[in-house]
């Protein structure tokens, strides 16, 4: 069928072949027939051929080469989708001979103009790397180039490649760090995860530990310390240093100042906590946990609790991580205690994890509620869960002294439970608890001794026997009796119980040899012929030790000390205690074992590496030119972020697509807006992204202007309220959509989507800040009347920095005469009342044929009255006047789109 002319037949045939692959059958015999169809025009057939090819190319290398030329042709196709898919399949064919071809194709595609193809190139890099690791250096070059890419589509993929090929080359990130931080919110969600993880590692190597001072304060005051639990595991040496430093003076230590880039990262990741994707939320959570100052870590708790409402698999992993976090930072999750209550529908493993979290969260204030919760859990039908609950109660009791008695009483009540498992588990826990204060509870021990008749679970029996042996002096009457019963049933017991019987016998022999001597010997004799060699050994050992003979005199003296030494009470610990050395959210953390390729999170550096490596040099050179450079976007976003720290501005998550789409419809521009849960956030979300960006960049320009304004002077005054009357609003920048001629054979919309994602900023260059030469020039002094000196002025439409109420007037002096003009200044200003003038600085010398520029400020008081003054040179004086035309008395202010519309409606 594959040789048929009809596409439909071919399709049917390919489907059958792929079905064979799917079932795991070998279809490699058909390779030649299939490869022929690689050039097939039908896209459906083609895709299935690709599936086949990728699967079997490695086995049939020679034949696979036949198809290479088709892909090479595909790489030149005008359609970006075909280019991309050709590259993808080409790079997926694992045939070593074609490595050079692949390298070439990747390099070419890396500079392709379609971001989709560049993204595919980024994906191809690790494939080639795994095929031939020797290409690493060349591939790193490509990665470096792609890292500099400003498209959100590419960013995620290239960081994936970076992580796989050269995670150690952290220096490649420096230059792109800020860009990645700023792009982060717009990157595709899977890319976000990878980038966040990479940035976490990066930040750990580049910034200082933000908690240095806090842990120190804690140590100083001591109050907070208990709150967080004493197991702060700040670096050991750090803590030591602190202790040493504490004595001299606290003030000596310089306060920690967070690197602005560190702050930038934290700020830009925070809105991602609202993400729909659990992986992103967790990535941000671990970033905050590992990087943020203690005071700020709290924000992740809410997001993590939200994840608990998701699929049970996600819950499972979240709870694992929460369990680890609660050990370190208990306070963080305390407000959400109720969210960890167990539901009857939860699967067992989730119940157990929730118990773990609840136990970690328990403290003096909430223990009573938690214990009441636990009480109901014990009734559950899920046995493993009940056992875990009892253990949890035990741990609560050890951790919190006040409730120990309550817990113990509760557990003793459980001993009368009909369920053996519950009883057994309680016995084990009670044993551990009793060890802490045995003298008070001899009645409990007695009660437990009675239980030996009923309980069959070996572990519980062993525990009871051990208890009785250990505290036999508290129950002198019962102990021998128990031993008697046990001796009777010795042969039928489990090994673990037998060992404890021997132990009990030995201990009783030492304390009460009169009553138990014979019993002990009987037990030891039984043990001597036991099947288990462990028990036989133990019996021999004990016999030698306790039964005094001539040989072992020395040892048996100490036997009592050996057996009845005070044993330290066991510490009931969380199984999650040791997990925190793994990075949260990683697979290794989940497994509590190192998974392949796990990279240890580096420790904080002692001193911060030079932060200037992250500076991008292009900055200054481009700024001087005065055009709006591409990177401005980054920095303007940066600024905006700074201003808006309080409101997480999630709505611009896809804002990049705004300008292009809004050409068609305004309302589309906010397509990406999503606001967080709070209603106050939704308020800010309603502002249109487009206007935001437009005005932002204006504002940015304003800032720049202000810096440059040092040389300009002169001013007038204008009341703020009346601005509307005479002023025009600055024109909103007209977004010019970027249309790229791409032959779309599938869908146009995708192409525009992709293009829209690109960060090219030309569209945003605001019209208001065009160079002043574009503005209308007015003549102040004609060169005839000025005897060779001509003066022109224009209203530069920029704020006059020395005085906000003044209008900036840009003056241009041209000396057309043959001689130099000196001491150019102004004098004798005649003004209407209220008007003010800020003079321009004197121009010392204006050589013949030269021009000079100066800025003066005039406050016209919102009138069109002229400002009259004399323009003086070293020889002459000219009477001149500046009269503002209507429409020039204005200053740029920045408005959001909504405000603009409102104002427009009013005027």
């Amino acid at each position, binding site marked *: 069928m594959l040789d048929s002319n009809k596409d439909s037949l071919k399709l049917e045939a390919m489907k059958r072949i792929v079905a064979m692959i799917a079932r795991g059958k070998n279809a490699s015999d058909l390779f030649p027939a299939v490869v022929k169809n690689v050039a097939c025009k039908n896209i459906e057939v083609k895709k299935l051929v690709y599936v086949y090819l990728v699967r079997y190319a490695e086995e049939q290398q020679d034949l696979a080469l036949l198809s290479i030329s088709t892909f090479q042709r595909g790489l030149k196709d005008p359609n970006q989708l075909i280019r991309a898919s050709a590259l993808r399949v080409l790079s997926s064919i694992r045939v070593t001979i074609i490595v050079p071809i692949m390298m070439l194709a990747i390099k070419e595609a890396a500079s392709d103009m379609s971001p989709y193809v560049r993204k595919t190139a980024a994906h191809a890099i690790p494939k080639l790397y795994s095929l031939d690791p020797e290409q690493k250096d060349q591939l790193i070059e490509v990665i470096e180039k792609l890292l500099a890419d400003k498209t959100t589509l590419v960013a995620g993929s290239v960081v994936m490649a970076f992580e796989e090929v050269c995670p150690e080359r952290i220096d490649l990130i420096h230059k792109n760090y800020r860009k990645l931080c700023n792009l982060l919110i717009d990157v595709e969600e*899977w890319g976000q995860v990878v980038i966040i993880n990479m940035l976490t590692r990066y930040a750990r190597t580049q910034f200082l530990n933000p908690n240095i001072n806090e842990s120190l304060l804690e140590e100083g005051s001591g109050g907070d310390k208990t709150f967080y639990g004493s197991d702060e595991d700040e670096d050991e040496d750090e803590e030591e240093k602190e202790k040493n430093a504490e004595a001299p003076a606290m003030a000596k230590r310089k306060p920690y100042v967070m690197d602005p880039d560190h702050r930038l990262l934290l700020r830009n990741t925070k809105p991602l906590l609202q993400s729909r994707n659990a992986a992103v939320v967790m990535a941000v959570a671990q970033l905050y946990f590992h990087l943020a100052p203690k005071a700020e870590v709290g924000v992740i708790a809410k997001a993590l609790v939200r994840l608990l409402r998701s699929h049970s698999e996600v819950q499972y992993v979240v709870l694992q991580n929460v369990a680890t976090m609660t050990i370190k930072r208990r306070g963080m999750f305390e407000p959400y205690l109720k969210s960890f209550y167990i539901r009857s*529908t939860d699967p067992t493993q989730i119940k157990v994890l929730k118990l773990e979290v609840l136990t970690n969260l328990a403290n003096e204030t909430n223990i009573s509620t938690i214990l009441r919760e636990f009480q109901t859990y014990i009734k559950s*039908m899920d046995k493993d869960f009940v056992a875990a609950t009892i253990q949890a109660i035990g741990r609560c009791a050890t951790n919190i002294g006040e409730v120990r008695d309550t817990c113990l009483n509760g557990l003793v009540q459980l001993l009368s439970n009909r369920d053996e498992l519950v009883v057994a588990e309680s016995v084990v826990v009670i044993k551990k608890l009793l060890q802490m204060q045995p003298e008070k509870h001899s009645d409990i021990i007695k009660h437990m001794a009675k239980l030996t008749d009923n309980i069959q679970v070996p572990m519980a029996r062993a525990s009871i026997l051990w208890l009785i042996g250990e505290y036999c002096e508290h129950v002198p009457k019962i102990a021998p009796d128990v031993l008697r019963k046990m001796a009777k049933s010795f042969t039928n017991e489990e090994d673990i119980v037998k060992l404890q019987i021997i132990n009990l016998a030995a201990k009783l022999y030492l304390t009460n040899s009169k009553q138990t001597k014979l019993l002990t010997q009987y037990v030891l004799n039984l043990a001597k012929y036991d099947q288990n060699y462990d028990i036989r050994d133990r019996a021999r050992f004990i016999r030698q030790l306790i039964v005094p003979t001539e040989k072992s005199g020395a040892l048996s003296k100490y036997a009592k000390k050996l057996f009845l030494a005070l044993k330290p009470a066991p510490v009931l610990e969380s199984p999650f205690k040791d997990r925190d050395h793994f990075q949260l959210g*990683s697979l290794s953390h989940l497994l509590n074992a190192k998974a392949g390729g796990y990279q240890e999170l580096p420790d904080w550096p002692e001193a911060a590496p030079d932060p200037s490596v992250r500076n991008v040099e292009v900055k200054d050179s481009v700024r001087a030119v005065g055009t709006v450079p591409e990177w401005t976007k980054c920095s303007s976003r940066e600024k905006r972020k700074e201003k808006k720290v309080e409101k997480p501005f999630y709505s611009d998550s896809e804002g990049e697509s705004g300008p292009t789409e809004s050409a068609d419809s305004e309302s589309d521009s906010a397509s990406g807006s*999503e606001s967080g*849960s709070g209603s106050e956030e939704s308020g800010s979300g309603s502002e249109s992204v487009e206007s935001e960006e437009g005005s932002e960049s204006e504002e940015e320009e304003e800032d720049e202007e202000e810096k440059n304004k040092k040389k300009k002077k002169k001013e007038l005054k204008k009341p703020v309220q009346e601005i509307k009357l005479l002023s025009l609003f600055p024109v909103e920048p007209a977004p010019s959509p970027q249309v790229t001629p791409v032959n779309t054979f599938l869908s146009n919309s995708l192409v525009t989507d992709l293009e829209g994602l690109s960060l090219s900023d030309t569209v945003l260059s605001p019209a208001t800040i065009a160079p002043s030469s574009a503005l209308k020039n007015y003549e102040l002094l004609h060169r005839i009347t000025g005897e060779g000196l001509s003066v022109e002025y224009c209203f530069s439409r920029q704020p006059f920095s020395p005085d906000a109420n003044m209008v900036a007037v840009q003056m241009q002096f041209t000396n057309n005469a043959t001689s130099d003009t000196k001491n150019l200044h102004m004098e004798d200003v005649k003004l209407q009342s209220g008007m003010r003038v800020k003079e321009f600085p004197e121009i010392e010398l204006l050589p013949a044929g030269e021009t000079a520029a100066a800025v003066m400020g005039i406050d016209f008081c919102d009138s069109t009255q002229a400002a009259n003054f004399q323009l003086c040179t070293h020889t002459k004086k000219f009477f001149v006047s500046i009269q503002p035309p209507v429409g020039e008395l204005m200053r740029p202010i920045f408005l959001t789109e909504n405000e603009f519309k409102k104002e427009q409606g009013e005027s």
Partner: protein
Amino acid sequence: MISQVFILSSKGDHLIYKDFRGEAGSDVVGIFYEKVTALTGDQPPVVMSHKDLHFVHVRQGGLYWVATTTADSSPFTIIEFLNRFTALVKDYCGSLSEKSVQMNFALIYELLDEVVDYGYIQTTSSDVLKNFIQTEAVSSRPFSLFDLSNVGLFGAETQQSKVAPSSAATRPIQSSREQGGKSEIFVDVIERMSVVIGTNGVLMKADVEGEIRVKCYMPSCSEMRIGLNEEFSIGKSQLRGYGAAVRVDECSFHQAVRLDEFDSHRILRLCPSQGEQTVMQYQLSDDLPSAPPFRLFPTIERDSGGRLLMYLKLRCDLPPKSAAINVCATIPVPKGSVSLSQELSSPDQSAELKLQNRAVDWKIPRFPGGTQLSALFKLEVPGLSSASMLEVGPVGLSFELPKLTVTGLQIRFLRLSPIQPGPSQRWVRYVTHSDSYTIRI
């Protein structure tokens, strides 16, 4: 990074197997299945390891969806990916079942090809994917009486023509092409409630999680506006309007939702992409606007013959017009219960003693609001003691409340703009499920 992705049927048949990185042999499928089936318990661990290989799986639609990885990648990523992938398959194939996966393997391969490249996840957005996917889905929907019987489930038996069969929402998104652009939109408001009622009948804990789901079959979808109740308020302090406010504690929205009008008019605006998406999620805890739907009045005693008598009165506090369906009360009974005799108030109810669970299941197919049912169970328990009376544990209820939301959230209107050229149909349905409804005795 994902090494392999495969889908197994519950019997262990290979349905789909794709190797992305060539890192592990193909026998892993067998290893995985052995591991999964060897385990007992209600749910095998999400992550399992075999040598260097880690299996991450989710179970949906009775199938195992497994991804393997060798490297240390975030387990969240993989789980989330598998969940998204199942959602995609569901969108494209209509439903998740062994049959639909088998019939659409070519499509699923194509999807996998676009979604994952060399183990890296590229995109899972159905908007982006629809540009790449060529294969048409094969719909495996046989005609069945089941569909018809389900009609009544959403009420309005008298107006059958106006109610879409519940299966209407389970068809592949792309089939709209061939069906002549029959454009439909389904909006579901689904709430799940978990409630704990104490021994004294006091509501101890109540939690409602709700979501608004939109399933869109519009070939070219324009903007859609969903109007919620005007009185809808978020948080405790905020109160809107007079009368009974519809309040939630927290809500979050899909990123495509625009909230320009949400503050003023409680209108969600969005351009839904094809397939299913959750537009809004919300939670309400502890402060239900109405009484909990069910109350139980138990009397438990021992009769002279040494039998355990349980007299249960169950009252449904829903408004009289609505009814709960598929109600099932699970009453744990003492260990060693041997047999059960029952007296139920109507013949359509049933009760059964499940020995391995040690519980009595009392099933009520339909339970109208404002009514009360009673049941008398007599249990033969040899050696009944007073201690074992305590083992009559908390009663768990599971139920479904069609056409009702506990929070009172309603959809005021559903508007498409601009008006679609062809006939477009919009469906809205409400349902509340029980998540964990426990009444302690």
